[in-house]
């Protein structure tokens, strides 16, 4: 196990991952909340409204000046989704103390100063009439709405978003991490304050530190955080993380949706039920399956659909280990939908029938092993690795997972392919066709 666990206060734990190779100290603070359409936008707004200003640093520029003075320290909040849980995450980083120029060393420890600033932001926000400032709330609601709209700028993101909406229409997972334009518009300063106090009172909190400091030093730096958070909690409270609904086989028939848009490149997205979740003891087999199918430039999809058939620029597969799903996404010409679907099916069949060339399988294995080992080089990636696994009830380190991947056989992968069921196909149909490349002026042939 690559970390030590320490209880901070009811519902809050500290995980210290010792690493002496980084030039920075890294800390993440994660609040785990139920994913719910009625609160998603409020929780999504919280980090940005809190970072607008607090009693000590009343404006955004005052806070920015403070962070610049702490040698460009990072303090950022964001909202995400992990399975059917909504996460409010704050990430902090600063230069490790030895990297501070000698002339500034008497200004006190950078890491402790950064955590003090974070506590100012989290526990002492600016208020009026007992709730968040209306101006900050309204300003961030506008930004949230713009961020939701902006996802249409990236057609690959837009197409994946549409696939998720269709595939998970009857599941909690369909709730977007930031909510919708309508739910964002409905948030009031009072509702936001309610979400804030609910979060501080009831959400399980996971604090992860990566760096050179000893656990007792990190605990000491967090003493202000612990006492402030502790005021919202008592030993009798219970703190439960939300459970994610996992559907292991797709319903039949496969849902197929085609939408037209005036864009040059079409996007094909396919959603599968994978029957494999991170909490399973053998999820690493499915991770290797995805890597082999479409995880790198040496994967079957890349080699076949892009390199041999020249159908696309990008074609990749990736799993969601919390929800038990896999997605394939690629950018193609409007007239190559069926060719691409057939090519993708054929590559899954290659794995299912145990026909993967040994060198391709070994390349995928090495690629995945390399990716796991690279995690050790990033404090954020290392912290996220253990957080994801703790949420699933497992504690394997990247290196332990490497050992497991080394033992996966072609037969294991064939079973993964057998368990995979196609659920939903979404096609964002654009105007560009392969005939355009031959200077043909014919109208685009398109899907129905």
């Amino acid at each position, binding site marked *: 196990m690559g970390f030590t666990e320490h209880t901070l206060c009811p519902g809050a734990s500290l995980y210290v991952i010792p690493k002496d190779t980084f030039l920075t100290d890294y800390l993440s603070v994660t609040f785990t909340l139920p994913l719910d359409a009625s609160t998603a936008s409020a929780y999504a707004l919280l980090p940005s409204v809190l970072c607008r200003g607090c009693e000590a640093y009343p404006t955004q520029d005052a806070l920015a000046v403070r962070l610049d003075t702490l040698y460009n320290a990072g303090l950022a909040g964001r909202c995400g989704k992990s399975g059917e849980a909504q996460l409010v995450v704050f990430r902090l980083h600063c230069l490790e103390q030895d990297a501070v120029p000698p002339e500034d060393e008497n200004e006190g420890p950078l890491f402790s100063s950064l955590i003090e600033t974070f506590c100012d932001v989290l526990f002492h926000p600016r208020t009026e009439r007992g709730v968040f400032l209306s101006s900050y709330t309204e300003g961030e609601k506008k930004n949230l709405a713009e961020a939701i709209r902006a996802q249409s700028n990236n057609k690959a993101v837009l197409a994946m978003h549409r696939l998720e909406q269709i595939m998970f229409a009857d599941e909690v997972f369909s709730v977007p991490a930031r909510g919708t334009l309508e739910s964002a518009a409905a948030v009031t300063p009072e509702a936001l304050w309610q979400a804030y106090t609910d979060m501080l009172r009831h959400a399980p909190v996971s604090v992860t530190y990566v760096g050179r400091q000893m656990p007792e030093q990190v605990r000491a730096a967090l003493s202000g955080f612990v006492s402030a958070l502790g005021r919202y909690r008592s030993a009798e409270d219970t703190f439960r993380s939300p459970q994610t609904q996992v559907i292991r086989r797709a319903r039949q028939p496969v849902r197929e949706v085609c939408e037209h848009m005036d864009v040059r490149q079409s996007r094909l997205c396919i959603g599968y039920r994978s029957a494999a979740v991170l909490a399973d003891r053998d999820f690493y087999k499915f991770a290797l399956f995805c890597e082999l199918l479409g995880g790198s430039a040496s994967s079957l999809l890349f080699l076949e659909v892009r390199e041999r058939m020249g159908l696309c620029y990008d074609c990749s597969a990736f799993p969601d280990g919390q929800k038990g799903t896999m997605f394939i996404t690629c950018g193609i010409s409007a007239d190559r939908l069926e060719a691409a679907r057939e090519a993708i099916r054929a590559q899954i069949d290659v794995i299912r029938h145990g026909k993967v060339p040994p060198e391709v399988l070994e390349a995928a294995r090495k*690629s995945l092993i390399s990716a796991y080992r690279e995690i050790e080089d990033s404090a954020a990636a290392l912290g996220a690795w253990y957080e994801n696994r703790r949420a699933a009830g497992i504690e394997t380190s990247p290196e332990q997972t490497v050992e497991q991947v080394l033992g996966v056989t072609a037969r294991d992968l064939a079973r993964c392919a057998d368990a995979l069921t196609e659920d939903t196909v979404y096609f964002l149909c654009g105007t560009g066709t392969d005939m355009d490349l031959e200077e043909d002026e014919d109208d685009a042939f398109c899907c129905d």
Partner: protein
Amino acid sequence: MRSAVIETLTSARLRQSYSRIRHRSGLTVCVLPKRSAVTCGVIGVNFGANDRTFCLPGGEVMTLPAGTAHFLEHKMFAARDGEEDAIARFARIGANADAYTTPDLTAYQFSTTDAAYPALEILLDFLFHPYFTEENVEKERAIIAQEIRMYDDTPVQAGYYGLMEAMYHTHPIRDNVGGTEASIRQITPELLYTCHKAFYRPDNMTLCVAGRVEADGVLSVLDRCLPERGEHPAPERIFVPEPVYPAVQSVQYQADAAIPLLYLGFKDPILPADSAARMRRAAAADILNDILFCRSSPIYADLYTRGLINGRFGAEYEYADTYGYALISAESAQCDAVDAQIRQYLADRRALHDITDAQFSRCRRVMYASAVTAFESAEDMAAECLDCEMEGTDMFTPVDVMMQITKEDLFYVLDTLYLPKQLCRCVVT
């Protein structure tokens, strides 16, 4: 005879050092040992999208279709029929490989956790053994066309290239790095071979390797894999003199942007021939941009508080020997209001020269921290080192130059670059 000259570069300020090797083949190599899991190698070829017209050693002047350097980058990974291509060779040893083309260079990189020297050997092998055929070039044309379409559908790309087209009269930076579907139709295997022979030569390349490597180990691979130094120098680039003022003051594009995008470009009229002077001007411009437009600047706070911008707002300075520009970008439903406020803000700063000591010293802290964290990962180290070395400097000099910049340097950039007559605007809706 020794095959290379090795020097050690050290920064007392950053407490870092690395080796620079001048190999007999002409290749410049930097070795940056680091206790990391991954080792990264990146080789930069001094041949980018901007290198469109040049004079071959025999005197022949060639003009390339837009997108040639990028097309060549894609095709370098190809292998003879029945042989493994470069991607497969890297994959067999557990290494990942990638490549990219910028206006000024083409770069090929690998990362590996346990096969640094074999990966380096593959990199140095495939770069000097191209294989282009009518068939494989034709297939790549379809893939690159998909890439061009993907970027065409991205408003940010439309805005950037819209601005470049408006700002520059003839300079090739106005063209998309990948070219167009029409321009790449003109690319043939013969053309790619000609470009490869002209530019893919050790004395026109720089290699940077960071991670679990040592200079001796790298040198041993170089001695084994590199071809001899070429007889002729690399081709001479030809650039048509570019007027100092923008070609067009204002343009607008429709690209289905969810929120309109505003790009304000200031075309730099001062392009020092000397690389040290260029670096000094760029350092001053970077500091100035940070003070004037970063998250702690007065205009950012004001625009954000009034709801005129969201978090996607920033300023940067880009330059090479033949171009330089400052770029301010914002996402805003009210681009005209943001534009007007930025113009007034800059006019006030030029009139008042009111940058404070506190702003200046805070910005230095930010820059210093960025210089320290450039050594946080092997990947960042290799990439940063390549940028510096290909600009003719090392990783440490820019930090020292930055520390020497004075407020007068900032005011000089403010008064010569951020002028209405240098300004060009592009709005994407």
